[in-house]
């Protein structure tokens, strides 16, 4: 009898080892791809590896990255949220209405924006979990609703933050400058992104919400039968995703120094692409924050690099599409191999 137990034990240890390899491979793959891209572009163009250009890459990662950090929670449940792009816009318009039109202090504007995002997520989450609508349809609806509302609230015109010059400092200001006369300065947007990444990592890996997130994506019925209130937690997960979109809305508005009501649609697809390139499966149950961050960097590096090289914008899109498919293909091949 003890012998049986022993053979079972070794089987367990064996699987553990291969699991580590797989996890390493995933990070290595995405990270390796990013390094190769950086290397390639630095050789291809002399303008690529300059401080200003690197900062510009990072800055353009922020918005997409924060959206990706939010949507990964939903994707791990096996769902999707198509509304994050327009929710982001809606949140920034709300901030504009508060700060510029109503003259409220900036911090209220920020809170309202994040609250708006979370509320939109809450609506999506409720419709998906309580009313059992498919996430694709439910969030498609919310996407249209928020897009329309942004236009209505703003009167289809951008809202500028010209009365509150400190607002734009949120993203473009800098708490870290170095070099002579502050020649090199790192914009705050990047720190916000990294801070959000750490926050997302903690929520996903350390809290109950993160645990249930994986559980629901892994086997929703089993999670329900284990006595977990799946409806409640799913709603919370969508709300969290919405809140991240709200933060992205602030970062975006501060960067443009205005709330642009016509912007937003299409951002959700970039965010999904970042998550997927980062090795997260659309089926749910697995995914990492680090992978998502790297995925977001890969996308913006690619866009930026091609631009610096002088590749026409049409072709940039084609190439980005190819890279997306290739990345996911490589990842699934790796997974199949490790099985």
């Amino acid at each position, binding site marked *: 009898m003890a012998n049986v137990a022993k053979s079972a034990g070794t089987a367990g240890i064996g699987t553990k080892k291969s699991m580590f390899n797989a996890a390493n491979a995933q990070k290595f793959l995405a990270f390796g791809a990013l390094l190769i891209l950086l290397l390639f572009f630095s050789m291809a163009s002399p303008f690529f590896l300059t401080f200003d250009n690197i900062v510009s890459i990072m800055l353009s990662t922020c918005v997409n990255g924060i959206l990706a950090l939010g949507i990964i929670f939903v994707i791990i449940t096996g769902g999707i949220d198509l509304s994050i792009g327009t929710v982001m816009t809606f949140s920034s318009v709300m901030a504009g209405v508060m700060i510029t039109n109503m003259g409220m202090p900036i911090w209220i504007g920020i809170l309202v924006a994040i609250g708006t995002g979370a509320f939109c997520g809450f609506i999506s989450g409720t419709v998906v979990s309580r009313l059992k609508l498919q996430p694709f349809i439910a969030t498609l609806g919310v996407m249209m609703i928020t897009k329309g509302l942004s236009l209505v609230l703003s009167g289809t015109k951008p809202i500028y933050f010209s009365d509150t010059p400190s607002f734009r400092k949120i993203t473009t200001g800098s708490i870290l400058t170095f070099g002579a006369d502050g020649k090199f300065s790192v914009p705050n947007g990047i720190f916000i992104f990294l801070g959000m990444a750490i926050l997302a990592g903690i929520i996903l890996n350390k809290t109950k919400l993160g645990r*249930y997130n*994986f559980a629901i994506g892994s086997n929703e019925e089993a999670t329900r039968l284990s006595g977990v209130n799946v409806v409640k937690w799913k709603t919370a997960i969508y709300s969290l995703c919405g809140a991240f979109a709200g933060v992205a809305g602030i970062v975006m508005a501060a960067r443009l120094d205005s709330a642009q009501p016509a912007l937003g649609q299409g951002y959700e697809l970039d965010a999904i692409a970042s998550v997927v390139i980062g090795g997260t499966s659309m089926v749910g149950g697995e995914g990492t924050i680090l992978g998502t961050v790297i995925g977001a960097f890969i996308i913006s590096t690619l866009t930026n690099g091609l631009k610096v090289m002088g590749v026409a914008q049409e072709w940039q899109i084609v190439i980005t599409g190819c890279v997306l498919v290739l990345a996911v293909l490589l990842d699934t091949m790796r997974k199949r191999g490790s099985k």
Partner: protein
Amino acid sequence: MKETLLVMEGIDKSFPGVHALDHCKFELRAGEVHALVGENGAGKSTLMKILTGVYARDEGKVIYKGKEINLAGTKEAQELGICIVHQELNLMPHLTAAQNMFIGREFMGKNKLFVNDNEANKKAQELFDAMNLRLDPKVKVGKLTVAMQQMVEIAKALSFDSSILVMDEPTTALTESEIDELFKMINHLKEKGVGIVYISHRMDEIKRITDRITVMRDGTYVDTVNTKEVDIQQVINMMVGRTIYETANEHNYTDPNEVVLEVKNLIRGKTIKDVSFKLHKGEILGFSGLMGAGRTEVMRAIFGADKLDSGEIYVKGQKVQILRPEHAVKYGIGYLSEDRKRYGLTLGETVEQNISLASVDKYTNKLGFTNMSTITKTSEEYIETLSIKTPGPKQRVKNLSGGNQQKVVIAKWLLRDCDILIFDEPTKGIDVGAKSEIYKLLSQLAKEGKSIIMISSELPEVLRMSNRIIVMCEGRITGELDIGAASQEEIIKYATKREA
């Protein structure tokens, strides 16, 4: 007499098209192990799901510890101390064993904000040790074998400090030694005064572990008897409402010269170590061994579901390359997986869709149109011959009882008309009546000239059905026994013959 823990009275439950429970009753005392038996689809699982808050009842009363209760969900049941190990595995494959066990009641750190996995791992490890189970609580459940997953599920149920523990066919994936450990745990809980409901189709287990037996038939209550005072045959007769005669297999004649399948020196990592054997026409070849012996792995490799490192496969004397399951099917090999939920069925689809899944080509014309009405008719025939309990071929498979799901998988491969059929635990979760039907069916198939490989962890079953028995241990074949020379002791001897 011990105090009565639970009384269920007049429980009625209907699903669309099925009257699953018809004013059924059940009673449980503290500190007893109470068997719940009945044929596939009798309503055992449904009754227990009502008790544990998974389903709401249509009618009836549940009195627990003297108070009537109305549960709104599983969580409430758990809080009241009513727990269940479900018949179908209910685990999250991407979470670790410990995370699965404590889902819904995580240990939280001091700050009440973060989950404390160390604590969970420690608690899980303690429990595994008590169960004599060598398992790392940090392993992801999806990487474990079915048997190990079953043990995790059981460990999860044991980790609750419950007053009622329901076990719905907990041993279907387990081997003798694990069952021994489980029974030790059950006896321990019994002493603590826990009331245990034990559902199983294995009569020997019921005789061994239970104090009383409640028999159900077609959603109704038949009788409750003391285990000591009845004969198993009586219980079986009550279950089926008729007398079943257990016939021995005639071990029909096989031609040792006609080899339909031969494998030579199969090797795959650490799980398959140099396996060679022959399968003759019209033969039932039994594969025996302990859990993790590599039997399923060998069959999956032959079927092309897993890749071999090296080795040769010959079908009817011809060397073949089987890289994917469709190649195997092309050569006339069918495989019934032990884990029907994961590999055998498309649960959301209907009975007829599942039965015809591997044979859609047969019913499709050159233009690509599939003849649905023929499929329905054929499915009806199989429902009839295998007596699958379903309102019709259009019922979704996930709504069938566990045993009937298994029959659907069998029907699928019968329809595909394979010459070589590999059955991996074919009677897992199947009631005695249906079991003898499946035995009859296997004999019948062998007589018709089909060749069958049967993996089974139930020794009596292997001994009864096989012409020859191959015993495996740790990925190697350790013995080959002719049925005349085989006995349980002999098999166990080879099954534990480890490399020095």
